[in-house]
């Protein structure tokens, strides 16, 4: 929130002018005016949507993003921000004069989306399923929406191939581990990922068992339940101010009393890389697998990626 407030107001208008001149130059130099199939002004709502558009080379056509669009990091710096994906302002989005608005499933509020449609803006909802197939479908849907089917097919095939590679490695896992995903420490108590969460999906893809499978969403778990569940590994997001280092995390009495605590096994990674379910997800899965099963030989080759963020706390 604070970042948004601090941003100078004039950037939006500057960008509009810049975008407009770029468009004029583009149209002038090619002499071709784009049809509906290739919308020129895209508003991207949802981290994975923005990331995929950048990966498809459509960055210049993006005229607005939302606060969850954290990758690539330049996106939030370069593009006007329409706010949080679930709290969009119809007029704010309209002010960017988009040809098309790509919204990740779950965006809203519904009245704002309805107003956008009434304004004649093409609104495309991109499904968001936390599975490998879900990522592929996401890429294809975005490609179809912005007229980049070929590039999307290539990216989807690449992502599919990399997911298939981690799936193959997964088959060699003989001894599954039990994983506890901690979203945050809520006044000392871990907020644990249950079923239906992105974290649950990633843990499954990495061939491990989520011990939060008994409930849905993110819930605070009691000390005794954690000890009973006996996780082998704790996974957390690495971000500023969270202090996700083994010393702090295993200072928690319950966590220290688990196998994870005994082996001081804490895995951390950038939250949006880990939970975003975008093109970088196969690497994130491979990273988790390598952390979960250090003895698996196949996994090492998979984790080599230019996108890998710093392995904070590990």
């Amino acid at each position, binding site marked *: 929130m604070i970042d948004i407030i601090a941003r100078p107001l004039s950037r939006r208008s500057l960008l509009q002018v810049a975008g407009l001149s770029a468009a004029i130059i583009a149209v002038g130099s090619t002499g071709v005016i784009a049809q509906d199939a290739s919308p020129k002004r895209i508003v991207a709502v949802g981290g994975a949507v923005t990331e995929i558009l950048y990966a498809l080379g459509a960055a210049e056509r993006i005229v607005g993003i939302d606060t969850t669009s954290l990758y690539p990091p330049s996106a939030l710096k370069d593009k006007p921000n329409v706010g949080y994906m*679930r709290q969009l302002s*119809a007029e*704010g989005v*309209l002010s960017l004069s988009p040809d098309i608005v790509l919204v990740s499933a779950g965006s809203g509020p519904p009245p704002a989306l309805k107003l956008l449609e009434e304004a004649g803006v093409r609104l495309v909802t991109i499904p968001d399923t936390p599975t490998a197939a879900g990522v592929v479908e996401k890429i294809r849907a975005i490609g179809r929406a912005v007229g980049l089917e070929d590039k999307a097919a290539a990216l989807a095939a690449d992502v599919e191939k990399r997911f298939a590679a981690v799936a193959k490695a997964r088959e060699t896992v003989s001894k599954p581990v039990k994983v506890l995903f901690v979203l945050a420490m809520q006044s000392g108590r871990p907020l644990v990922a249950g079923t239906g969460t992105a974290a649950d999906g990633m843990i499954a893809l990495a061939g491990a068992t989520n011990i939060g499978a008994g409930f849905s969403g993110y819930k605070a778990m009691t000390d005794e339940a954690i000890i009973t569940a006996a996780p082998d590994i704790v996974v957390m997001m690495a971000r500023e101010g969270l202090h996700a280092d083994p010393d702090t995390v295993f200072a928690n009495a319950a966590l220290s009393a688990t196998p994870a605590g005994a082996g001081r096994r804490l895995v951390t990674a950038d939250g949006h890389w880990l939970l975003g379910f975008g093109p970088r997800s196969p690497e994130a899965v491979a990273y988790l697998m390598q952390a979960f099963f250090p003895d698996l030989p196949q996994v090492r080759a998979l984790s080599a990626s230019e996108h890998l963020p710093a392995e904070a706390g590990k």
Partner: protein
Amino acid sequence: MSTPPMRAFADNGGGTLVAALQRRRQRTAFVFALLVLLVAATSIVSLGLGAVSIPPSRTFAALWTGLTGSPADANAARDSLVILNIRLPRTLLGLMVGASLAVCGALMQGLFRNPLADPGLVGVSSGAALAAAIVIVLGERFLPYLPFATLPFVALPIAAFLGGLLFTYVLYVLSSGSGRTSVATLLLAGVALGAMAGAVTGLLTFLSNDQQLRDLTFWSLGSLGGATWTKVTTILPAFIPLAIALPFLGRSLNALSLGEAEAFHLGLPVERIKRIVIVVVALAVGAAVASAGVIGFVGIVVPHLLRLAIGANHKVLLPASALLGAALLLASDILARLIVSPAELPIGILTAAIGAPFFLWLLLARRKMVT
């Protein structure tokens, strides 16, 4: 709180009652004229400014096409959509919510004869908010069994109204033992009710899924961002009784300010007045909370400012509160949508940012007066 007429006499020494009253009347007329201008100005700005920049000439053209028929071209069509379907309902909602909150603050302060009573502070908003939270989180589970399930958009305001009514009633019963409303009991009961609502809302937070959780969080800060014609038409049935009751309640609250027993001996149907005020407040606050979320401090800031300016006569205080509340909320909303455009700030942040320091100042000023 305000300058009582007595001081006016003392100030001008040899002045007469008539002269003092006349000055007061002139001042009131001036303040009213100012308030009407303020409401008109904020309404025009609210229609004219937003993330989509539309020059004034086209704003009026858009309003005109809305009345007369189809827009001339695609540009005009978009203008008229923004003006007629986004800004106009938003402005109307802001006017009604602001007026409702401010008038309800004044009504409660009059009813409890306490300048600290405010629907937000003493738990009425919490009650409405809690009921609305129940609908947000549990709605999917029990709505199919309710008769109004076919009209889901009315479930939220109805629930908010019932929640507000229940909390106002409980508050009143708790704080008005033996014919007098006790100020300390009122505030403590309000705090306790607020805490209870907080506890249950906490439980709902625990039960909610990610999306509902985020709805709850944003909604608890309030926003006019979701304004649609549907919302305007759902708050209207609650606003109309308030507007109708307003002229009649001024005299009654004035009498009530003498004390309940005294008012009763003046021939005032005290119990009926109390019931009417409670129902009207619950209805209006409930509808305001349901349509715009919890917006704090309008109910306490506005009546106080006006008491300082025009005195405590409820006949003028209530309508003046309606005007200033409407203008204040619209002004806050204009800021809310411009500061981080094309995104939006929750309006509750702005009203609280303005209201909380004012409230502190008020408390300190009162303390100085007492000591």
